């Protein structure tokens, strides 16, 4: 997660505000690179970062055997069992 946040900071604050003029020396298609990063590339990066995060966290949940849907079902069952006495 720290890596993802580092990329986030680097892309949004680094590339697109602090180093934009330097990046503008290059071009992507016919758009200056710094300009493209600010108005297109950074947004694409953000979506990708969250996608990686979601994917990693779901892997992590799986490796610990966590299944929230099953938990919800289980708690609904135990609530039904306990209904009337101590619930």
């Amino acid at each position, binding site marked *: 997660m720290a890596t993802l946040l580092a990329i986030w900071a680097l892309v949004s604050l680094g590339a697109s*505000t602090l180093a934009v003029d330097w990046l503008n020396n290059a071009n992507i298609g016919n758009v200056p690179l710094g300009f493209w990063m*600010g108005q297109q590339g950074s947004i694409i990066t953000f979506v990708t970062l*969250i996608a990686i995060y979601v994917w990693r966290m779901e892997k992590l949940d799986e490796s610990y055997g966590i299944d929230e849907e*099953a938990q919800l079902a289980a708690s609904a069952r135990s609530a039904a069992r306990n209904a009337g006495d101590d619930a």
Partner: protein
Amino acid sequence: MSTFGWTVFWVVLTFGLYIFIAIRSRARTTGEFYVAGGGVPAVANGAAVAADWMSAASFISMAGLVAFQGYGGAVFLMGWTGGYVLLALLLAPYLRKFGKYTVPDFVGDRYSDGARVVAVVAAIFVSLTYVAGQMRGVGVVFSRFLEVGVTTGVLIGMAVVLFYAVLGGMKGITWTQVAQFSVLIVAYLIPAVAIAANLTGNPIPQLSFGEILTRLDGIQTDLGFDAYSDPFSFYERRNLFLITATLMVGTAGLPHVIVRFYTTRTVKAARRSALFALFFISILYLTAPAIGVFAKFNVIDTVHNASVSELNEIEWVQSWSDTGLLAIEDKNGDGVISYTPDEETNELVKFDRDILVLANPEVAGLPKAIVGLVAAGGLAAALSTASGLLLVISSSIAHDLIYKMLWKDATEPQRLLMGRVAMFGAVCVAGYFGVNPPGFVGEVVALAFGLAAASFFPVLVFGIFWKRANAPGAIAGMLVGLTTASVYMYMLIWGGMEPWFGVNKAGVGIISAVLNAITLVVVSLMTPPPSQELQDLVEDVRYPGALTGVGTSSQVSTEPA
């Protein structure tokens, strides 16, 4: 059919759809009213967050801002999307796990009732400033396209919002927002694609705007302006940095966005809806810069060196001039309009940046049906955001203030009724501001982000990740953040103060957020740690597995599912 006829057609069709959805999804319990019963699927929630987030400012104003600020517009593009990375990684899953109704709920339970009150005040202030802007957007669209007064327009908008927000609460709002997202994104993309195809032969705006950008840079330099892609023509480097950071942190601290992650069924769904939300938002945000380039090119191309008499015969020039948002004046009497950077000689006297997207299809000569559709899209954007904000205001008052602080033994039906009454009140206040907009709406939106960044974000993040953070620290932090930011903004806007170190008023929020964090840490360390109970709660929110109150993960995973 005329533009007017098409607009009426689209508006009636979409409004009918919203009302139909409202009737289908009435709220029966407090849980449904505030968080849609916590059972919204991730894709639908993502679309709802996107509609909630993309306001009249995104739909109507943003491409215009980008067109007139050039590279400077990137602060909005990045600021309003980058915040979702913070939200998805640092806040959404944890707050969902905590499982309450509102942001002040978290602040109040994690810290203290004193902190809750500060959070309620901040949430209401931030949301009200925003709502006023949305209602104003509704008024502008109605007055231009439906030939009714701004007041009538606002009243019609209020009636529709009132209907589905009071009836359906978060449940009605969420499903309406899913529909509104579809309307607004279609209305945004169709003209962009059509214009891209017309101008360059390549219908994908993101790929084809580069060609026009090169020509636009050339034209602007010829006319004596800075090149469109020049990075520092609008903001200096330090302000680009500070404003981007403020908008991102502010985005992650806005109560009406955070609350959306309480509406999902599981933590996993909360994470996924953050992804869907940003994906849906990025469709519009990646198109906006292309629209900015196309529109500016088209406007200069149409207006510069055109004869006054010809211009005055163009339908959109006439109708926008009537609204007072567009003005041309042949100052040197040569019968031709010139667009120049010098105010003395510039003859495109006024071109309000808010009309750029709405006027864009007409400027590009697209069919009337599309012009009407864009109007309906603008209304969808304004109404969806307004309803999300109204929910925050009503829940802050009815739930956080009255139920949690003043009337703790209210019954379930009484709480639901309170929610509805507060919603009704909030719609009326918003309508008032829509009809009588405070002259400083534009300023105040920047203010709202700065204040959200300065007040909420540090308190939420420390509340989740640092067990030692305590109530005195949080209150002191929020107060320091709020006062430094608001005093600085006030002094710049109304106090006639010169900016310190050239810091723009929209960029001060991030500095106040840092001060807030420092204060929070220092005061927390100087005062006793929070109770063991609270520390356990933080531990529980942090680690994966059981939703709060459901049981531990080891117990659950051994049970057959």
